[in-house]
C-alpha cells in the first residue's frame, strides 16, 4: 500500500498580513479612474482658487480705498513696509527725546501723566484733528527705550506704560511682557528703569521709586556698544473694530495722539546726563502735532505713531498686501472633492457587494479599515501637499510678476503651512472614510462629512454667522484643523480684527490639530467597532 499525497497547489500561500491588505486597497484605489481623477481635482481645486486670488491684490486695494483708510497709493507698485530685525513688517515711528548711550548703564524716570486725543466715536475719519476728543488709545505708549540706531526697523528694547494695558516691557517689535497693571496719573505715577549690561537689557517698574520689581530681561545679540536711547512716546492709529456679516472687517480709524509727562530723569553707569534732543523717528502722519519741551526737569512729549509689528490680513494696515492665507482659500474646495473620493472608497464596496469579497480575503476587519485609512491618508496628504504647494509658490510668482505686494513670509512659515495643509487634508480624508464606514451609504456619507468638515469652515469664514459663533465652530468642529493653515501669529499688542477670513484662527495650530485628530480617532474607533459587530 502506498500512501497517496493529497494535491497541493504549487502557488505559495498568500499572507494575510497588513502589507498585503494595504497593497490590495492601493490597487483598488488606483485602478478606479473616477477616484484618481477626484484626487487630482482636489489638488487642482485647492491650487486653482488660490491662483484666482493671486491674479489680483487689486481686490484688497479697492476694498481698502473704499474704506478710506488712507491707503491711497498703496495699490501702486511702490508699496513697501519697514522690516524689523526678524524680517517681519513693522511700524516704527515715535517721538524720541534721546542721546547717544555708550556702553553699559541705566536710566530711571517717573511718568506722571499719559493723556491723549482720539477721533470721535463712530465719527468720520477726516485725517486732521478737528473734532478730536480727549481719550487715550489702549496701546498708546510712553517710557524708556534703547535702540540700535535711529533707522526705522532697527533693534530695540523698551519699558513703557501703555494706555490701557499697564506697564509693558517690549523688544524687537514682537516681544511683549506685562508688568504692573493700572493706568498712570498724577496720583499714581509709574517709575520705570532700563538697564544695559552687555547684550542684556532689563526693565524694572515701581510705584514709588523705592520698591522695584523686574518686568523682563532680554538678550539682543549683536546690539552695538554705542546705541541711541531716552524717553519716547507713541500713539497708534485708532482702529474701530467692527464686525460685518460676510467676513467681518475693521471699519474706520485714524491717527491718535498721546502726551506723556516725565520727570526725575536720572542716568547712571556709563550713560551721561544729557542734553536730551527731541526728534521724530519716521514721518508723523499728522505734521505739526508732535513736539517736546523741557522745563525744570519736566519733559513733555506729544507723539503719534507706533512701535509694533504690522499684522497681515484684511482691515489692518497691511490690507493691500496679498497673504499666504489668500492663496490657500481653495483648500476647502479641494476638500469637497476629497470627501467624495474618501466616502466612495468605502461605500462603493457596500454598494457593489465587494465588501464581502474584501472581508473574505482579509478576515481581520480592523486591518481592512486600517489599510483603507492609510491609503486615503496618503492620497489626501499628497493632494494637499501638491495643491497648497502649487497655490503658494505659483501664487507668489504671479503676484510678484504683476507688481503687487506680497506680505513678507519666511520660507519656514510657508513650509509649515504647506505641510500643515497636507496633514489637514489627510486627516479629513480619513475622517470622511470613517464616516463612510459607519454610514455605509455614499450620498449620506458625503452630506454628513461635508456638514461636519467643510460647512463649519465655510460659515465661519465666508458667510453669515457672527464672528463669535464662527470662532466656536472653528474650536469644536473638525474644521478646527484649519488652524494648521495660520501663517502669521496674532499680535495681541496691535488692535485689529483677527478673523478667520484674514487667516487667524481661534485655536493654536497644534490645538486645532488635536481637535481634528480627536474627531478622526473617535470616528475610526466607532467605524472599527461597527465593522466588527455588523454583518457586512
Amino acid at each position, binding site marked *: 500500500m502506498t500512501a497517496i499525497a493529497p494535491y497541493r497547489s504549487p502557488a505559495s500561500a498568500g499572507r494575510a498580513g497588513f502589507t498585503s491588505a494595504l497593497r490590495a486597497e492601493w490597487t483598488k484605489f488606483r485602478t478606479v479612474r473616477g477616484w484618481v481623477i477626484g484626487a487630482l481635482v482636489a489638488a487642482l*481645486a485647492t491650487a486653482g*482658487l488660490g491662483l*484666482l*486670488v493671486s*491674479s*489680483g*491684490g*487689486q*481686490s484688497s486695494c*479697492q476694498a481698502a480705498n473704499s474704506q478710506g483708510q488712507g491707503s491711497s497709493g498703496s495699490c501702486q507698485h511702490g508699496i513697501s513696509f519697514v522690516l524689523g530685525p526678524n524680517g517681519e513688517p513693522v511700524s516704527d515711528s515715535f517721538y524720541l527725546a534721546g542721546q547717544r548711550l555708550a556702553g553699559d548703564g541705566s536710566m530711571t524716570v517717573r511718568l506722571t501723566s499719559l493723556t491723549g486725543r482720539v477721533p470721535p*466715536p*463712530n465719527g468720520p475719519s477726516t485725517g486732521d484733528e478737528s473734532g478730536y476728543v480727549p481719550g487715550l488709545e489702549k496701546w498708546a505708549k510712553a517710557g524708556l527705550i534703547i535702540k540700535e540706531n535711529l533707522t526705522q526697523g532697527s533693534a530695540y528694547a523698551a519699558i513703557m506704560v501703555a494706555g490701557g494695558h499697564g506697564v509693558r516691557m517690549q523688544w524687537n517689535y514682537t516681544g511683549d511682557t506685562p508688568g504692573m497693571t493700572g493706568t498712570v496719573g498724577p496720583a499714581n505715577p509709574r517709575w520705570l528703569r532700563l538697564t544695559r549690561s552687555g547684550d542684556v537689557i532689563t526693565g524694572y517698574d515701581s510705584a514709588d521709586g523705592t520698591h522695584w520689581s523686574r518686568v523682563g530681561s532680554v538678550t539682543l545679540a549683536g546690539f552695538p556698544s554705542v546705541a541711541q536711547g531716552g524717553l519716547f512716546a507713541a500713539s497708534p492709529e485708532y482702529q*474701530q*473694530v*467692527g*464686525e*460685518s*456679516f*460676510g*467676513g467681518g472687517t475693521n471699519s474706520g480709524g485714524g491717527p491718535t495722539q498721546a502726551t506723556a509727562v516725565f520727570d526725575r530723569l536720572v542716568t547712571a553707569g556709563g550713560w551721561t546726563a544729557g542734553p536730551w534732543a527731541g526728534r521724530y523717528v519716521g514721518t508723523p502722519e499728522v505734521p505739526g502735532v508732535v513736539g517736546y519741551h523741557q522745563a525744570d526737569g519736566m519733559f513733555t512729549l506729544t507723539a503719534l505713531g507706533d512701535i509694533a509689528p504690522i499684522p497681515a490680513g484684511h482691515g489692518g494696515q497691511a490690507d493691500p498686501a496679498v497673504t499666504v492665507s*489668500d492663496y490657500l*482659500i481653495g483648500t*476647502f*474646495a479641494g476638500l*469637497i*472633492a476629497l*470627501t*467624495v473620493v474618501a*466616502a*466612495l472608497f468605502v*461605500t*462603493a464596496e457596500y*454598494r457593489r457587494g465587494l465588501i464581502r469579497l474584501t472581508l473574505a480575503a482579509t478576515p481581520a476587519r480592523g486591518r481592512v479599515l486600517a489599510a483603507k485609512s492609510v491609503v486615503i491618508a496618503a492620497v489626501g496628504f499628497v493632494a494637499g501637499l501638491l495643491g497648497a504647494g502649487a497655490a503658494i509658490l505659483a501664487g507668489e510668482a504671479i503676484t510678484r510678476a504683476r507688481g503687487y505686494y506680497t506680505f513678507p513670509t519666511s520660507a519656514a512659515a510657508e513650509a509649515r503651512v504647506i505641510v500643515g495643509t497636507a496633514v489637514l487634508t489627510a486627516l479629513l480624508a480619513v475622517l470622511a472614510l470613517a464616516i463612510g464606514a459607519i454610514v455605509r*451609504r*455614499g*450620498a*449620506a*456619507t*458625503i*452630506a454628513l462629512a*461635508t*456638514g461636519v468638515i*467643510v*460647512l463649519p469652515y*465655510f*460659515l465661519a469664514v*465666508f*458667510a*453669515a*454667522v*457672527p464672528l*463669535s*459663533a464662527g470662532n*466656536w465652530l472653528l474650536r469644536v468642529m473638525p474644521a478646527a484643523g484649519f488652524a494648521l493653515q495660520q501663517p502669521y501669529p496674532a499680535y495681541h499688542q496691535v488692535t485689529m480684527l483677527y478673523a478667520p477670513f484674514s487667516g487667524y484662527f481661534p485655536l493654536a495650530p497644534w490645538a486645532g490639530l488635536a481637535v481634528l485628530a480627536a474627531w478622526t480617532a473617535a470616528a475610526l474607533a466607532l467605524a472599527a467597532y461597527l465593522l466588527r459587530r455588523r454583518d457586512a
Partner: protein
Amino acid sequence: MSHALHAEWTKFRTLAGTWWLLLAVAALTIAVSAAAAAAFTCPPGPASCAAAATGADPARLSLTGVDLGQIVIALLAVLAIGGEYGTGMMRLTLTAVPRRLTAYAAKALVTTVAAVAAAVLAVGGSVIAGRLILPGKGLSAANGYLALSLGNGADLRAAGGSVLYLTLIALLAFGVTAAVRDSAAGIGIVLGVLLLLPVASAVIPDHVLARHLEQLAPMTAGLYIQATTGVESLPLTPWQGLGVTALWALGALVLGGAVLRLRDA
C-alpha cells in the same frame, strides 16, 4: 398619474430614512439658527446696539440654519431618486409606470411636498427661536429693532422665501441626481455648486466678475430673499435672486427629465 403618485408616496413614506432626514432638516436648521442668534453680540462701544452700529439683520440672522438645512434637504431629494438607481428599483418603477415623465413628475411632486413640509417646520422653528432669543441680545425694540413677526412684510418675505428656497434646492438636487443617476455623484455636484460659487465670488479679484458670479450662484442669489436690511444695496432684488435659484432648479429638472426619457435606465 394618481396611481403613479400613490406608488411614489408609498415608496417615500415607507422608508425609515426619509422620516429621519425630514426630522434632521428641521432639527438642524433650528439648532443652528438658535445658536447663531445666541452667539450674537453687539460690537463694543457706546450705543453699539443701535441699528447703524451692528449692521445686523435680525431676520437673516435667525434664519442662519438654512445654510445647513439646505444640505440635509438636498440629501433627502438626492436619495429620493438616487436610491432607486442604487438598488435597481428604478427598473421596476419604470416597468410599472412606462410613461417615464409621469413617473418622474410623480416622484418630483412627492419630493416637493416633503421638502415644503420639512422647510415649513425648519423655518417656522427658526423664526420662533430668533423672536425669543434676539431681544435678549440687544436687538430689542429699545434699540430700534422690531420683533420678528410674520405680520411684517419683510420678515414674511424672508421666512416664506426661505421655505421656497429650501424647496428649490431640493428640486435642484433631485434634477441633478436624475441626470447623473448616482446618489454620491449627485450630492457631490450639488454641494460643489452650492458652496463653491459663493467662495469663488468672494475671492475673485475682479469685482465686476465677482458681482456677476454672486448674481448667478444659486446659493448667494437665492439667499437674498432673507435680507430685510440693506435690500437696496444687494446685486439683485430678493425676488429676482430667488428667481435665479428657481431657474437653476428648473434647468436641473429639465436635464434630469431629458436624461430619464432618452437613456436606458
